[in-house]
């Protein structure tokens, strides 16, 4: 139960982090073009790596949920 709870929480965290990535591209665009079009655009690379990592993390959580499901079945038998 506690594990399931923490997974739900972490999933929400991952989602909010993803929203954060998108929102920071949005907010900075409104407050002037100096950041989003900053020379070099290294932040674009950081955001891309973050999205990639979150995507893989999301799949791992799905796998985790499936295994948890199987575990519960075995434990109940």
């Amino acid at each position, binding site marked *: 139960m506690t594990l399931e709870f923490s997974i739900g929480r972490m999933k929400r965290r991952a989602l909010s982090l993803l929203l954060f*990535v*998108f929102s920071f*591209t949005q907010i900075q*665009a409104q407050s002037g073009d100096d950041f*989003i*079009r900053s*020379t*070099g*655009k*290294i*932040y*674009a*690379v950081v*955001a*891309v*790596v973050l*999205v*990639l990592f979150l*995507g*893989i993390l*999301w*799949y*791992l959580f799905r*796998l985790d949920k*499936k*295994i948890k499901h*199987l575990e519960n*079945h*075995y434990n109940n038998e």
Partner: protein
Amino acid sequence: MSIKNNWWKILAAVMMIYVIIAGFLIPLKPGILTVSPTYIKNGENTSIKVQAYNANYDKEPNLRAWLKFDSTHYLASSQIEVLDHNNLNISFNLNTQIPTTDTIAPVSLIIDSSVDGYSLLPGAISIKNTFDPSLPAFTNSALSDMHAWTGIKFPFRNILYETIRNTFFHVAIWMALFLLSTIAAIYSILFLRDPTKLAYEHRAYSFTAVSLLYGMIGLATGAVWARFTWGAYWTNDVRLNMAAVSVMIYFAYFILRGTITDQDKSKRFAAAFNIFAYVAMIPLLLVIPRLTDSLHPGVGGNPAFSGEDLDNTLRMVFYPAIISMILLGVWMAQIRTRIFKIEERRLLEQEL
């Protein structure tokens, strides 16, 4: 957990760490960011303000610069004033006729330094041709002793700049997707040849699941990059839309497999659909985008991975990036297959 069976997982992790470290820490070569003014007239001496990136102009006593009209006509600078390591004022004597019949001639700026190598900004300045016959004739100055940078640095490309590093993440994940979906298609064929072998179907499903994940990550990372570079998450670009269509076809595979209630039928339909999705992906991702012009780097007539586009320093990180993404994908697909195996065994036990 024995090293003998799991060495490739460790390899994936080590390569990924290498890709992130090398991919972020190797600096870009120097290059020209902006010039101003970008529109000048011939018939006068002109001073051009140049802003560069990662340059060391203050360390080079013998800077040289040219305006390039075409492959045979160059105009050497008359004076270069170094403001700091990234900023220059370059004067050109344009009190001369220019070697072009165009009313407005686009010229490129070339700066050569023994410290940084040469850099070029294509179409940097537009020169208005006054066609004044009283001006002195054009004296051509040849390029000579150009310096090339020989150390390990990533190439400087206009528009891309630092995001050339996305080659190791965004591009590598698409490359890995091609191999993973190929494996999925092969397992689908194997399953259709012998529908009693459910293990093939499970592997096909697992590899397709990881392919779809990679496809979605590919679209999302592309969208983030586009926001920074083009100013919008999505544009009506052929390459983007075709990639989205391809990913949606793979979505349909999961819907198809999940909605048909007859277990045997659904698996065979899904396997056949998987082969269709794979065959459809090839023209959607590899052929159609190359037939049309596109904003996407590497497109517009040319494949992305030839000659100038991918230099050896990029390859040094790009190939390990692809391999690590593939290994990571195989790893995730393997875990998904193992879940199938346990589920199957459980069903068998229930029947007994």
